């Protein structure tokens, strides 16, 4: 149909927000959410290994809603790190949420969107929801984007609260080999997806250097290993990027 795009714009005028919320909920049926669900099943198993309660695990998943930050948090919890050093490490590990949020908001907002709604929806921003927003939102009429993302994000979070609980409970009943495999889902998922997402020289260098410096600082300075890894490997990666750009 040649006027397909035009008819979508017309739909926006006719269709109520409820329709776009439902479309967002239906958007959950695709491959990236499935991978995220398996990663959260793995995280549930990892949380149990760390000694957390099911309640801690579910509340953490809903409140933080960023798997890398949750892994840092779990790492700090199992190391017995104090709250101040943990805040520093988790804050550092989630800086990427800033540019991600900043790049989605201009796509989503209309002049009428209340700031409170944008703050609420910003909580849903993490790798999977961000990729989905960048991929799907530009094709939707502007007035449909907020309800679509609200439907998608809310469903994604609720689905993964179930996933993390399932992983937590499964880890207790499955044989140890399978439990080990579940806990291993998280590092494998992130290593591969981070390496696929690393576009800039700086991202690739930071990934490679972080992989090497992480275990090294764990042996040398176990108390603040995460912060040192971030600062040293991150700065080196940035210098590599500057050096490459100058040439």
């Amino acid at each position, binding site marked *: 149909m040649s006027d397909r795009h035009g008819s979508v714009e017309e739909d926006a005028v006719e269709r109520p927000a409820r329709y776009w919320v439902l479309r967002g909920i239906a958007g959950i049926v695709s491959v990236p959410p499935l991978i995220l669900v398996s990663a959260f099943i793995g995280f549930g198993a990892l949380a149990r290994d760390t000694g957390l309660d099911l309640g801690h695990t579910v509340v953490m998943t809903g409140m933080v809603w960023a798997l890398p*930050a949750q892994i840092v948090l779990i790492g700090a919890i199992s190391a017995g790190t*104090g709250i101040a050093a943990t805040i520093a490490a988790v804050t550092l590990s989630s800086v990427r949420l800033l540019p991600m949020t900043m790049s989605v908001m201009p796509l989503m907002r209309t002049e009428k969107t209340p700031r409170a709604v944008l703050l609420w929806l*910003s909580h849903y921003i993490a790798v999977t929801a961000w990729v989905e927003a960048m991929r799907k939102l530009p094709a939707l009429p502007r007035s449909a984007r907020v309800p679509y993302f609200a439907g998608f994000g809310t469903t994604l979070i609720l689905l993964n609260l179930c996933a993390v609980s399932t992983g937590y409970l499964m880890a207790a009943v499955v044989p140890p*080999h399978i439990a080990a495999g579940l806990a*291993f889902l998280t590092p494998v998922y992130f290593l591969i997806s981070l390496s696929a997402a690393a576009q800039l020289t700086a991202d690739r260098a930071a*990934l490679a250097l972080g992989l090497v410096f*992480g275990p090294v600082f764990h042996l040398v300075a176990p108390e603040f290993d995460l*912060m040192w890894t971030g600062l040293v490997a991150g700065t080196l990666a940035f210098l590599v990027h500057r050096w490459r750009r100058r040439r």
Partner: protein
Amino acid sequence: MNTGFWSLDATWWPYVFILVAGWLATDIWRFLGVFLSDRLTEESEALIFVRSVATALVAGVIAKLIVFPGGALAAAPMALPLAAVAAGMGFFWGVRRNLFLAILAAEAVLVGGSLLL
């Protein structure tokens, strides 16, 4: 004074810990992103630096989980998780760029290996 997650024998303390060191430490960036979204660009050098630090930190945590795994994996020899990761990365970059199949390849090596050893 020890302020770790397990340091206080009270049910509420872990939740305060999660709220402050988890929720506040992450949503502060998202909220800042909402307020700054019309000022900064994703290509600015400051943001590249800040993202490098974040990427390195996450990579460090991943490497620790692979090299020094806890719980069920702690008993396995270190070569096993390394071989599993190599299989996953090798599949993704060498055979097919399919995240799901690559994870499956890594898991097959890990679980298969731990059954044989």
